[in-house]
Protein backbone atom coordinates (compact mmCIF):
# COMPACT_ATOMS: atom_id res chain seq x y z
CA UNK A 1 0.00 0.00 0.00
CA UNK A 2 2.57 2.51 1.12
CA UNK A 3 5.66 2.39 -1.05
CA UNK A 4 8.95 2.69 0.69
CA UNK A 5 12.37 1.18 0.03
CA UNK A 6 12.88 -2.15 1.73
CA UNK A 7 16.64 -2.36 1.92
CA UNK A 8 17.09 -0.15 5.04
CA UNK A 9 14.72 -2.42 6.93
CA UNK A 10 16.61 -5.51 5.81
CA UNK A 11 19.89 -3.83 6.68
CA UNK A 12 18.76 -2.98 10.20
CA UNK A 13 17.29 -6.43 10.80
CA UNK A 14 20.35 -8.22 9.45
CA UNK A 15 22.48 -6.11 11.78
CA UNK A 16 20.40 -7.02 14.79
CA UNK A 17 20.30 -10.67 13.76
CA UNK A 18 24.08 -10.67 13.64
CA UNK A 19 24.21 -9.21 17.14
CA UNK A 20 21.96 -12.02 18.32
CA UNK A 21 23.84 -14.78 16.50
CA UNK A 22 27.50 -13.81 16.87
CA UNK A 23 27.72 -14.91 20.54
CA UNK A 24 26.51 -18.37 19.51
CA UNK A 25 28.90 -18.53 16.64
CA UNK A 26 31.78 -17.51 18.86
CA UNK A 27 30.99 -20.17 21.43
CA UNK A 28 30.53 -22.82 18.79
CA UNK A 29 33.82 -21.86 17.19
CA UNK A 30 35.70 -21.98 20.46
CA UNK A 31 34.15 -25.30 21.40
CA UNK A 32 35.69 -26.87 18.30
CA UNK A 33 39.05 -25.09 18.28
CA UNK A 34 39.75 -23.41 21.58
CA UNK A 35 42.00 -20.95 19.86
CA UNK A 36 40.34 -17.77 21.15
CA UNK A 37 41.19 -18.71 24.66
CA UNK A 38 44.90 -18.27 24.11
CA UNK A 39 45.36 -16.52 20.81
CA UNK A 40 45.17 -12.83 20.16
CA UNK A 41 43.95 -11.44 17.85
CA UNK A 42 41.26 -14.10 17.44
CA UNK A 43 40.59 -15.50 14.01
CA UNK A 44 37.14 -15.14 12.56
CA UNK A 45 36.94 -18.59 10.97
CA UNK A 46 37.78 -21.76 12.89
CA UNK A 47 41.14 -23.22 11.98
CA UNK A 48 41.53 -26.99 12.18
CA UNK A 49 38.34 -27.83 14.12
CA UNK A 50 38.37 -30.92 16.31
CA UNK A 51 35.83 -32.59 18.62
CA UNK A 52 38.21 -33.19 21.53
CA UNK A 53 36.66 -30.66 23.87
CA UNK A 54 33.35 -32.47 23.56
CA UNK A 55 35.14 -35.64 24.62
CA UNK A 56 36.81 -33.78 27.48
CA UNK A 57 33.43 -32.84 28.93
CA UNK A 58 32.68 -36.50 29.58
CA UNK A 59 35.92 -36.92 31.51
CA UNK A 60 35.85 -33.70 33.50
CA UNK A 61 32.34 -34.00 34.87
CA UNK A 62 29.56 -36.60 35.21
CA UNK A 63 27.72 -35.14 32.25
CA UNK A 64 25.44 -38.16 31.89
CA UNK A 65 24.42 -37.90 35.53
CA UNK A 66 23.61 -34.18 35.28
CA UNK A 67 21.70 -34.80 32.09
CA UNK A 68 19.72 -37.62 33.66
CA UNK A 69 18.88 -35.48 36.70
CA UNK A 70 17.72 -32.63 34.49
CA UNK A 71 15.59 -34.98 32.39
CA UNK A 72 13.99 -36.67 35.42
CA UNK A 73 13.20 -33.40 37.20
CA UNK A 74 11.83 -31.82 34.02
CA UNK A 75 9.74 -34.91 33.26
CA UNK A 76 8.19 -34.91 36.74
CA UNK A 77 7.53 -31.18 36.54
CA UNK A 78 6.02 -31.35 33.06
CA UNK A 79 3.70 -34.28 33.78
CA UNK A 80 2.49 -32.84 37.08
CA UNK A 81 2.08 -29.46 35.44
CA UNK A 82 -0.13 -30.69 32.62
CA UNK A 83 -2.31 -32.88 34.85
CA UNK A 84 -2.79 -30.37 37.67
CA UNK A 85 -3.22 -27.36 35.41
CA UNK A 86 -5.76 -29.14 33.24
CA UNK A 87 -7.76 -30.12 36.34
CA UNK A 88 -7.65 -26.61 37.76
CA UNK A 89 -8.44 -25.08 34.38
CA UNK A 90 -11.46 -27.35 34.03
CA UNK A 91 -12.66 -26.47 37.52
CA UNK A 92 -12.43 -22.78 36.65
CA UNK A 93 -14.79 -23.23 33.70
CA UNK A 94 -17.52 -24.10 36.23
CA UNK A 95 -19.43 -21.76 38.45
CA UNK A 96 -19.03 -22.26 42.16
CA UNK A 97 -19.51 -19.93 45.12
CA UNK A 98 -15.86 -19.26 45.95
CA UNK A 99 -14.75 -18.78 42.34
CA UNK A 100 -13.94 -15.03 42.58
CA UNK A 101 -11.86 -15.79 45.64
CA UNK A 102 -9.94 -18.55 43.89
CA UNK A 103 -9.31 -16.34 40.86
CA UNK A 104 -8.06 -13.57 43.12
CA UNK A 105 -5.80 -16.01 44.92
CA UNK A 106 -4.32 -17.23 41.62
CA UNK A 107 -3.77 -13.72 40.33
CA UNK A 108 -2.12 -12.60 43.55
CA UNK A 109 0.12 -15.68 43.53
CA UNK A 110 1.28 -14.51 40.10
CA UNK A 111 2.63 -11.41 41.83
CA UNK A 112 4.83 -13.44 44.17
CA UNK A 113 8.06 -14.16 42.34
CA UNK A 114 9.75 -17.38 43.30
CA UNK A 115 12.86 -15.43 44.33
CA UNK A 116 10.86 -13.79 47.11
CA UNK A 117 10.10 -17.18 48.65
CA UNK A 118 13.47 -18.91 48.66
CA UNK A 119 14.16 -18.83 52.40
CA UNK A 120 10.83 -20.29 53.58
CA UNK A 121 10.59 -22.52 50.51
CA UNK A 122 13.89 -24.08 51.55
CA UNK A 123 12.68 -24.50 55.14
CA UNK A 124 9.34 -25.98 53.99
CA UNK A 125 11.06 -28.43 51.66
CA UNK A 126 13.32 -29.36 54.56
CA UNK A 127 10.33 -30.05 56.81
CA UNK A 128 8.83 -32.21 54.08
CA UNK A 129 12.09 -34.15 54.03
CA UNK A 130 12.53 -33.52 50.32
CA UNK A 131 15.86 -31.69 50.30
CA UNK A 132 18.30 -33.11 47.80
CA UNK A 133 15.69 -35.23 46.03
CA UNK A 134 14.00 -35.25 42.63
CA UNK A 135 10.62 -34.55 44.21
CA UNK A 136 11.94 -31.60 46.14
CA UNK A 137 13.49 -30.19 43.00
CA UNK A 138 10.29 -30.51 41.01
CA UNK A 139 7.62 -29.79 43.63
CA UNK A 140 7.50 -25.96 43.43
CA UNK A 141 6.97 -26.27 39.68
CA UNK A 142 4.02 -28.65 39.90
CA UNK A 143 1.55 -26.01 38.79
CA UNK A 144 1.81 -22.70 36.97
CA UNK A 145 -0.91 -20.09 36.96
CA UNK A 146 -0.32 -18.87 33.41
CA UNK A 147 -0.87 -22.39 32.10
CA UNK A 148 -4.02 -22.84 34.18
CA UNK A 149 -5.47 -19.87 32.33
CA UNK A 150 -4.28 -21.26 29.00
CA UNK A 151 -6.22 -24.46 29.75
CA UNK A 152 -9.26 -22.52 30.97
CA UNK A 153 -9.39 -20.49 27.73
CA UNK A 154 -9.07 -23.66 25.70
CA UNK A 155 -11.80 -25.47 27.68
CA UNK A 156 -14.11 -22.45 27.51
CA UNK A 157 -14.04 -22.77 23.73
CA UNK A 158 -15.47 -26.33 23.87
CA UNK A 159 -19.23 -26.18 23.16
CA UNK A 160 -21.42 -26.81 26.22
CA UNK A 161 -23.59 -29.23 24.22
CA UNK A 162 -20.67 -31.59 23.77
CA UNK A 163 -20.06 -31.76 27.51
CA UNK A 164 -23.77 -32.22 28.21
CA UNK A 165 -23.92 -35.00 25.64
CA UNK A 166 -20.98 -36.74 27.29
CA UNK A 167 -22.65 -36.36 30.66
CA UNK A 168 -25.92 -37.84 29.38
CA UNK A 169 -23.93 -40.76 28.00
CA UNK A 170 -22.90 -41.34 31.59
CA UNK A 171 -19.28 -40.25 31.57
CA UNK A 172 -17.89 -39.18 34.92
CA UNK A 173 -16.32 -35.73 35.22
CA UNK A 174 -12.89 -37.29 35.42
CA UNK A 175 -13.45 -39.08 32.13
CA UNK A 176 -14.95 -35.98 30.55
CA UNK A 177 -11.65 -34.20 31.14
CA UNK A 178 -9.48 -36.95 29.75
CA UNK A 179 -11.71 -38.29 26.96
CA UNK A 180 -13.53 -35.18 25.75
CA UNK A 181 -11.69 -32.06 26.83
CA UNK A 182 -8.04 -33.02 26.57
CA UNK A 183 -8.18 -34.26 22.96
CA UNK A 184 -9.74 -30.90 22.07
CA UNK A 185 -7.08 -28.95 23.95
CA UNK A 186 -3.99 -30.22 22.13
CA UNK A 187 -2.73 -26.68 21.59
CA UNK A 188 -2.97 -25.89 25.28
CA UNK A 189 -1.20 -29.14 26.18
CA UNK A 190 1.64 -28.42 23.77
CA UNK A 191 1.99 -24.89 25.13
CA UNK A 192 2.04 -26.12 28.70
CA UNK A 193 4.52 -28.90 28.00
CA UNK A 194 6.95 -26.52 26.34
CA UNK A 195 6.70 -23.76 28.91
CA UNK A 196 6.99 -26.17 31.83
CA UNK A 197 9.92 -27.92 30.23
CA UNK A 198 11.86 -24.73 29.47
CA UNK A 199 11.24 -23.35 32.94
CA UNK A 200 12.30 -26.52 34.64
CA UNK A 201 15.24 -27.21 32.33
CA UNK A 202 16.71 -23.72 32.78
CA UNK A 203 15.99 -23.39 36.49
CA UNK A 204 19.13 -22.59 38.43
CA UNK A 205 18.30 -20.89 41.72
CA UNK A 206 16.10 -23.63 43.17
CA UNK A 207 18.46 -26.54 42.41
CA UNK A 208 21.28 -24.40 43.79
CA UNK A 209 19.42 -24.15 47.08
CA UNK A 210 17.93 -27.61 47.37
CA UNK A 211 20.68 -29.93 46.17
CA UNK A 212 23.52 -30.93 48.45
CA UNK A 213 25.15 -33.94 46.87
CA UNK A 214 26.91 -33.87 43.52
CA UNK A 215 24.68 -36.75 42.44
CA UNK A 216 21.56 -34.64 42.44
CA UNK A 217 22.85 -31.67 40.49
CA UNK A 218 21.16 -30.62 37.29
CA UNK A 219 22.78 -29.28 34.14
CA UNK A 220 22.71 -25.54 34.97
CA UNK A 221 24.32 -26.29 38.33
CA UNK A 222 26.89 -28.52 36.67
CA UNK A 223 27.69 -25.71 34.27
CA UNK A 224 28.16 -23.16 37.06
CA UNK A 225 30.28 -25.61 39.04
CA UNK A 226 32.38 -26.40 36.03
CA UNK A 227 33.02 -22.69 35.58
CA UNK A 228 34.11 -22.29 39.18
CA UNK A 229 36.45 -25.30 39.04
CA UNK A 230 38.04 -24.80 35.66
CA UNK A 231 37.72 -21.05 35.26
CA UNK A 232 37.26 -20.13 31.62
CA UNK A 233 40.54 -21.46 30.35
CA UNK A 234 39.39 -24.59 28.63
CA UNK A 235 37.39 -25.12 25.49
CA UNK A 236 35.53 -27.89 27.30
CA UNK A 237 33.51 -25.23 29.15
CA UNK A 238 32.19 -23.92 25.86
CA UNK A 239 31.62 -27.42 24.52
CA UNK A 240 29.58 -28.03 27.68
CA UNK A 241 27.65 -24.81 26.99
CA UNK A 242 26.77 -25.98 23.51
CA UNK A 243 25.71 -29.42 24.79
CA UNK A 244 23.43 -27.77 27.33
CA UNK A 245 21.99 -25.18 24.97
CA UNK A 246 21.35 -27.53 22.07
CA UNK A 247 18.25 -29.33 23.45
CA UNK A 248 16.58 -26.04 24.33
CA UNK A 249 17.30 -24.49 20.93
CA UNK A 250 16.10 -27.61 19.12
CA UNK A 251 12.88 -27.79 21.08
CA UNK A 252 12.27 -24.10 20.58
CA UNK A 253 12.76 -24.31 16.82
CA UNK A 254 10.42 -27.29 16.62
CA UNK A 255 7.67 -25.77 18.73
CA UNK A 256 8.19 -22.07 18.35
CA UNK A 257 4.55 -21.25 17.73
CA UNK A 258 3.25 -23.09 20.78
CA UNK A 259 5.88 -21.42 22.90
CA UNK A 260 5.04 -17.93 21.65
CA UNK A 261 1.33 -18.60 21.97
CA UNK A 262 1.84 -19.60 25.59
CA UNK A 263 3.81 -16.48 26.39
CA UNK A 264 1.44 -14.09 24.65
CA UNK A 265 -1.76 -15.72 25.88
CA UNK A 266 -0.48 -15.62 29.41
CA UNK A 267 0.54 -12.08 28.67
CA UNK A 268 -2.68 -10.72 27.27
CA UNK A 269 -4.56 -11.97 30.30
CA UNK A 270 -2.76 -9.23 32.22
Amino acid at each position, binding site marked *: MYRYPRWPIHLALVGVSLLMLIPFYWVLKTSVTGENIFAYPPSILPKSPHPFYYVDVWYYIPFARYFLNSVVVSAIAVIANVVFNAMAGYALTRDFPAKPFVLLLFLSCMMVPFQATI*IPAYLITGRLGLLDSYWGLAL*PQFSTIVCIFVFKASFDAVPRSLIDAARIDGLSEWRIIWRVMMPLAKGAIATNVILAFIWSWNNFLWPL*IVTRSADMQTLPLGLARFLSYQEDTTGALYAFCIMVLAPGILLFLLAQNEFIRGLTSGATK*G
Partner: protein
Amino acid sequence: MTIAPAVANRPYRLARKRTRQAVLVWCFLAPSLAVFLLYRILPLLWNVVLSFTAWSPLRPMRWAGLDQYEEMLHDDVFWHSLWNTLIFIASAPVGIVIALGLALLVSSDIRGRDVYRTIIFISYPLMTVAVAIIWRWLFDERVGLINYIARSLDLVDRPIQFLNSFVWALPSVIVANIWQMLGFYMIILLTGLQNIPPNLYEAAAIDGANAPRRFWRVTLPLLKPSLFLCFVIGMLNSFTSFDLVYVMTGGGPGRATELLVTYIYKLGFSQTRFDYAASVTIVFFVLLVGITWAANRLSGGNAGAVEKD
Protein backbone atom coordinates in the same frame (compact mmCIF):
# COMPACT_ATOMS: atom_id res chain seq x y z
CA MET B 1 -48.34 -42.57 43.70
CA THR B 2 -45.11 -43.46 41.99
CA ILE B 3 -44.35 -39.93 40.89
CA ALA B 4 -44.97 -38.23 44.22
CA PRO B 5 -41.78 -39.35 45.99
CA ALA B 6 -39.67 -38.28 43.04
CA VAL B 7 -41.20 -34.81 43.07
CA ALA B 8 -40.77 -34.61 46.80
CA ASN B 9 -37.15 -35.61 46.45
CA ARG B 10 -36.29 -33.09 43.78
CA PRO B 11 -34.98 -30.20 45.91
CA TYR B 12 -33.02 -32.67 47.95
CA ARG B 13 -31.53 -34.25 44.87
CA LEU B 14 -30.68 -30.89 43.38
CA ALA B 15 -28.92 -29.88 46.53
CA ARG B 16 -27.05 -33.16 46.57
CA LYS B 17 -26.06 -32.70 42.97
CA ARG B 18 -24.80 -29.22 43.78
CA THR B 19 -22.77 -30.49 46.72
CA ARG B 20 -21.29 -33.20 44.56
CA GLN B 21 -20.39 -30.59 41.95
CA ALA B 22 -18.75 -28.40 44.56
CA VAL B 23 -16.78 -31.32 45.96
CA LEU B 24 -15.65 -32.18 42.47
CA VAL B 25 -14.57 -28.63 41.68
CA TRP B 26 -12.54 -28.46 44.87
CA CYS B 27 -10.99 -31.85 44.21
CA PHE B 28 -9.86 -30.61 40.81
CA LEU B 29 -8.51 -27.40 42.26
CA ALA B 30 -6.88 -29.04 45.25
CA PRO B 31 -3.47 -30.02 43.81
CA SER B 32 -2.77 -26.63 42.25
CA LEU B 33 -4.08 -24.78 45.27
CA ALA B 34 -1.93 -26.91 47.53
CA VAL B 35 1.19 -26.12 45.50
CA PHE B 36 0.44 -22.39 45.54
CA LEU B 37 -0.41 -22.30 49.21
CA LEU B 38 2.71 -24.28 50.06
CA TYR B 39 5.16 -22.41 47.83
CA ARG B 40 3.67 -18.93 47.45
CA ILE B 41 1.30 -17.94 50.26
CA LEU B 42 2.88 -19.81 53.15
CA PRO B 43 6.42 -18.58 52.34
CA LEU B 44 5.12 -15.03 52.18
CA LEU B 45 3.61 -15.29 55.65
CA TRP B 46 6.62 -17.17 56.97
CA ASN B 47 8.85 -14.39 55.69
CA VAL B 48 6.81 -11.84 57.59
CA VAL B 49 7.08 -13.85 60.80
CA LEU B 50 10.80 -14.51 60.34
CA SER B 51 11.51 -10.86 59.69
CA PHE B 52 10.30 -9.95 63.19
CA THR B 53 12.30 -12.64 64.96
CA ALA B 54 15.88 -13.56 65.59
CA TRP B 55 16.32 -17.10 64.44
CA SER B 56 18.73 -19.39 62.68
CA PRO B 57 18.73 -23.16 62.45
CA LEU B 58 21.08 -23.34 65.45
CA ARG B 59 19.39 -20.86 67.75
CA PRO B 60 15.90 -20.94 69.27
CA MET B 61 13.46 -18.43 67.86
CA ARG B 62 13.20 -15.15 69.73
CA TRP B 63 10.97 -12.15 69.14
CA ALA B 64 13.09 -9.32 67.81
CA GLY B 65 10.54 -6.71 66.86
CA LEU B 66 11.95 -4.27 64.36
CA ASP B 67 15.61 -5.09 65.08
CA GLN B 68 16.14 -6.61 61.63
CA TYR B 69 14.66 -3.61 59.91
CA GLU B 70 16.73 -1.28 62.02
CA GLU B 71 19.85 -3.17 61.07
CA MET B 72 18.85 -2.81 57.44
CA LEU B 73 18.79 0.98 57.78
CA HIS B 74 22.47 0.93 58.69
CA ASP B 75 23.45 -1.82 56.28
CA ASP B 76 25.46 -0.31 53.43
CA VAL B 77 25.36 -3.52 51.41
CA PHE B 78 21.56 -3.50 51.55
CA TRP B 79 21.37 0.08 50.27
CA HIS B 80 23.92 -0.66 47.61
CA SER B 81 22.05 -3.70 46.33
CA LEU B 82 18.78 -1.79 46.45
CA TRP B 83 20.33 0.96 44.34
CA ASN B 84 21.76 -1.58 41.89
CA THR B 85 18.38 -3.28 41.63
CA LEU B 86 16.74 0.06 40.82
CA ILE B 87 19.32 0.74 38.12
CA PHE B 88 18.68 -2.72 36.75
CA ILE B 89 14.95 -1.99 36.63
CA ALA B 90 15.54 1.38 34.98
CA SER B 91 17.34 -0.45 32.19
CA ALA B 92 14.19 -2.35 31.19
CA PRO B 93 12.65 0.59 29.26
CA VAL B 94 15.83 0.82 27.17
CA GLY B 95 15.31 -2.74 26.02
CA ILE B 96 11.62 -2.10 25.43
CA VAL B 97 12.28 0.92 23.21
CA ILE B 98 14.79 -1.06 21.12
CA ALA B 99 12.29 -3.92 20.94
CA LEU B 100 9.56 -1.52 19.82
CA GLY B 101 11.76 -0.44 16.91
CA LEU B 102 12.44 -4.07 16.02
CA ALA B 103 8.75 -5.00 16.28
CA LEU B 104 7.84 -2.16 13.89
CA LEU B 105 10.52 -3.34 11.45
CA VAL B 106 9.53 -7.00 11.67
CA SER B 107 5.83 -6.21 11.31
CA SER B 108 6.40 -4.49 7.96
CA ASP B 109 5.56 -6.71 5.02
CA ILE B 110 9.09 -7.70 4.09
CA ARG B 111 10.32 -11.06 2.98
CA GLY B 112 11.83 -13.35 5.60
CA ARG B 113 10.21 -11.63 8.58
CA ASP B 114 9.54 -14.96 10.28
CA VAL B 115 13.24 -15.76 10.05
CA TYR B 116 14.17 -12.43 11.62
CA ARG B 117 11.57 -12.95 14.32
CA THR B 118 12.95 -16.37 15.17
CA ILE B 119 16.55 -15.18 15.25
CA ILE B 120 15.79 -12.22 17.51
CA PHE B 121 13.64 -14.32 19.81
CA ILE B 122 15.96 -17.29 20.12
CA SER B 123 18.01 -15.93 23.02
CA TYR B 124 14.99 -15.70 25.32
CA PRO B 125 14.26 -19.39 26.03
CA LEU B 126 17.92 -20.26 26.51
CA MET B 127 19.40 -21.34 29.80
CA THR B 128 20.50 -18.15 31.53
CA VAL B 129 23.52 -19.81 33.11
CA ALA B 130 24.89 -20.64 29.66
CA VAL B 131 24.06 -17.14 28.42
CA ALA B 132 25.95 -15.73 31.39
CA ILE B 133 29.01 -17.85 30.56
CA ILE B 134 28.91 -16.76 26.93
CA TRP B 135 28.73 -13.08 27.88
CA ARG B 136 31.29 -13.40 30.61
CA TRP B 137 33.65 -14.45 27.96
CA LEU B 138 32.64 -11.88 25.33
CA PHE B 139 33.47 -9.28 27.99
CA ASP B 140 36.79 -10.90 28.87
CA GLU B 141 39.66 -8.43 29.01
CA ARG B 142 42.32 -10.58 27.39
CA VAL B 143 40.57 -12.37 24.56
CA GLY B 144 36.97 -11.16 24.70
CA LEU B 145 35.37 -10.34 21.42
CA ILE B 146 34.09 -6.96 22.60
CA ASN B 147 37.51 -5.77 23.65
CA TYR B 148 38.93 -7.09 20.39
CA ILE B 149 36.41 -5.11 18.33
CA ALA B 150 36.88 -2.00 20.45
CA ARG B 151 40.63 -2.23 20.07
CA SER B 152 40.46 -2.91 16.34
CA LEU B 153 38.33 0.19 15.89
CA ASP B 154 40.73 2.18 18.08
CA LEU B 155 37.98 3.03 20.52
CA VAL B 156 40.17 2.12 23.45
CA ASP B 157 43.93 1.85 23.72
CA ARG B 158 43.95 -0.53 26.67
CA PRO B 159 41.53 -3.44 27.06
CA ILE B 160 38.73 -2.70 29.50
CA GLN B 161 38.28 -5.15 32.34
CA PHE B 162 34.51 -5.03 31.97
CA LEU B 163 33.48 -7.48 34.67
CA ASN B 164 36.27 -6.56 37.07
CA SER B 165 35.74 -2.83 37.04
CA PHE B 166 33.45 -1.01 39.44
CA VAL B 167 32.23 1.25 36.65
CA TRP B 168 31.62 -1.28 33.91
CA ALA B 169 30.47 -4.41 35.73
CA LEU B 170 26.83 -3.44 36.20
CA PRO B 171 26.35 -2.00 32.69
CA SER B 172 27.91 -5.17 31.26
CA VAL B 173 25.46 -7.39 33.10
CA ILE B 174 22.63 -5.11 31.99
CA VAL B 175 23.71 -5.43 28.34
CA ALA B 176 23.63 -9.21 28.62
CA ASN B 177 20.19 -9.03 30.24
CA ILE B 178 18.79 -6.78 27.52
CA TRP B 179 20.27 -9.09 24.89
CA GLN B 180 18.34 -11.99 26.38
CA MET B 181 15.07 -10.13 26.95
CA LEU B 182 14.93 -8.25 23.63
CA GLY B 183 13.18 -11.03 21.72
CA PHE B 184 10.58 -11.46 24.40
CA TYR B 185 9.60 -7.79 24.41
CA MET B 186 9.51 -7.86 20.65
CA ILE B 187 7.09 -10.81 20.56
CA ILE B 188 4.71 -9.12 23.01
CA LEU B 189 4.80 -5.85 21.06
CA LEU B 190 4.41 -7.70 17.77
CA THR B 191 1.23 -9.33 19.07
CA GLY B 192 0.03 -5.90 20.15
CA LEU B 193 0.77 -4.42 16.72
CA GLN B 194 -1.09 -7.22 14.99
CA ASN B 195 -4.16 -6.50 17.11
CA ILE B 196 -4.42 -2.91 15.85
CA PRO B 197 -7.13 -2.84 13.19
CA PRO B 198 -5.56 -1.84 9.83
CA ASN B 199 -8.50 0.37 8.88
CA LEU B 200 -7.44 2.83 11.58
CA TYR B 201 -4.24 3.45 9.63
CA GLU B 202 -6.19 3.83 6.43
CA ALA B 203 -8.53 6.33 8.05
CA ALA B 204 -5.59 8.26 9.47
CA ALA B 205 -3.87 8.27 6.09
CA ILE B 206 -7.02 9.56 4.38
CA ASP B 207 -7.21 12.29 7.02
CA GLY B 208 -3.75 13.33 5.90
CA ALA B 209 -1.69 12.02 8.81
CA ASN B 210 1.89 11.28 7.77
CA ALA B 211 3.84 8.27 9.01
CA PRO B 212 5.29 9.82 12.22
CA ARG B 213 1.88 11.21 13.14
CA ARG B 214 0.27 7.83 12.51
CA PHE B 215 2.85 6.30 14.82
CA TRP B 216 2.30 8.81 17.65
CA ARG B 217 -1.47 9.07 17.31
CA VAL B 218 -2.54 5.55 16.33
CA THR B 219 0.18 2.99 17.02
CA LEU B 220 1.50 4.20 20.33
CA PRO B 221 -1.83 4.79 22.14
CA LEU B 222 -3.17 1.43 20.99
CA LEU B 223 0.05 -0.27 21.97
CA LYS B 224 -0.10 1.05 25.51
CA PRO B 225 -1.37 -2.20 27.11
CA SER B 226 1.41 -4.19 25.43
CA LEU B 227 4.03 -1.64 26.46
CA PHE B 228 2.77 -1.73 30.01
CA LEU B 229 2.93 -5.50 30.00
CA CYS B 230 6.50 -5.39 28.68
CA PHE B 231 7.42 -3.01 31.45
CA VAL B 232 5.87 -5.16 34.18
CA ILE B 233 7.55 -8.31 32.91
CA GLY B 234 10.82 -6.51 32.32
CA MET B 235 10.73 -5.10 35.82
CA LEU B 236 9.91 -8.49 37.28
CA ASN B 237 12.79 -9.95 35.30
CA SER B 238 15.23 -7.29 36.50
CA PHE B 239 14.03 -7.71 40.05
CA THR B 240 14.55 -11.45 39.99
CA SER B 241 17.62 -11.63 37.79
CA PHE B 242 19.70 -14.00 39.85
CA ASP B 243 21.30 -16.45 37.43
CA LEU B 244 22.93 -13.86 35.22
CA VAL B 245 24.54 -11.88 38.03
CA TYR B 246 25.50 -14.94 40.06
CA VAL B 247 27.38 -16.55 37.18
CA MET B 248 28.76 -13.46 35.45
CA THR B 249 30.13 -11.60 38.45
CA GLY B 250 28.89 -13.27 41.62
CA GLY B 251 27.88 -9.79 42.82
CA GLY B 252 31.39 -8.46 42.49
CA PRO B 253 33.78 -6.82 42.12
CA GLY B 254 33.25 -5.87 45.74
CA ARG B 255 29.51 -5.32 45.77
CA ALA B 256 29.38 -3.52 42.44
CA THR B 257 26.76 -5.81 40.93
CA GLU B 258 25.08 -7.04 44.09
CA LEU B 259 21.29 -7.12 43.60
CA LEU B 260 18.69 -7.65 46.29
CA VAL B 261 18.12 -11.23 45.11
CA THR B 262 21.76 -12.18 45.23
CA TYR B 263 22.11 -10.48 48.60
CA ILE B 264 19.14 -12.41 49.96
CA TYR B 265 20.63 -15.63 48.67
CA LYS B 266 24.02 -14.91 50.21
CA LEU B 267 22.50 -13.86 53.53
CA GLY B 268 20.40 -17.00 53.68
CA PHE B 269 22.67 -19.65 52.31
CA SER B 270 26.24 -18.51 52.83
CA GLN B 271 25.85 -16.60 56.09
CA THR B 272 22.87 -18.65 57.40
CA ARG B 273 21.08 -15.50 58.48
CA PHE B 274 17.59 -16.62 57.55
CA ASP B 275 15.90 -14.02 59.74
CA TYR B 276 17.69 -11.05 58.23
CA ALA B 277 17.34 -12.49 54.72
CA ALA B 278 13.60 -12.74 55.34
CA SER B 279 13.31 -9.09 56.29
CA VAL B 280 15.27 -8.05 53.19
CA THR B 281 12.86 -10.24 51.22
CA ILE B 282 9.91 -8.37 52.72
CA VAL B 283 11.35 -5.04 51.60
CA PHE B 284 12.09 -6.57 48.22
CA PHE B 285 8.52 -7.80 47.85
CA VAL B 286 6.89 -4.57 49.04
CA LEU B 287 9.02 -2.64 46.57
CA LEU B 288 7.99 -4.97 43.76
CA VAL B 289 4.28 -4.64 44.52
CA GLY B 290 4.65 -0.88 44.95
CA ILE B 291 6.35 -0.36 41.59
CA THR B 292 3.84 -2.58 39.79
CA TRP B 293 0.99 -0.67 41.37
CA ALA B 294 2.54 2.68 40.45
CA ALA B 295 3.12 1.52 36.88
CA ASN B 296 -0.48 0.40 36.67
CA ARG B 297 -1.68 3.78 37.94
CA LEU B 298 0.57 5.63 35.51
CA SER B 299 -0.68 3.62 32.57
CA GLY B 300 -4.22 4.76 33.40
CA GLY B 301 -5.10 1.76 35.51
CA ASN B 302 -6.70 -0.08 32.62
CA ALA B 303 -3.83 -2.08 31.21
CA GLY B 304 -5.30 -4.75 28.97
CA ALA B 305 -8.34 -2.70 27.98
CA VAL B 306 -8.50 -1.11 24.55
CA GLU B 307 -8.09 2.64 24.62
CA LYS B 308 -11.41 4.45 24.40
CA ASP B 309 -10.56 8.17 23.78
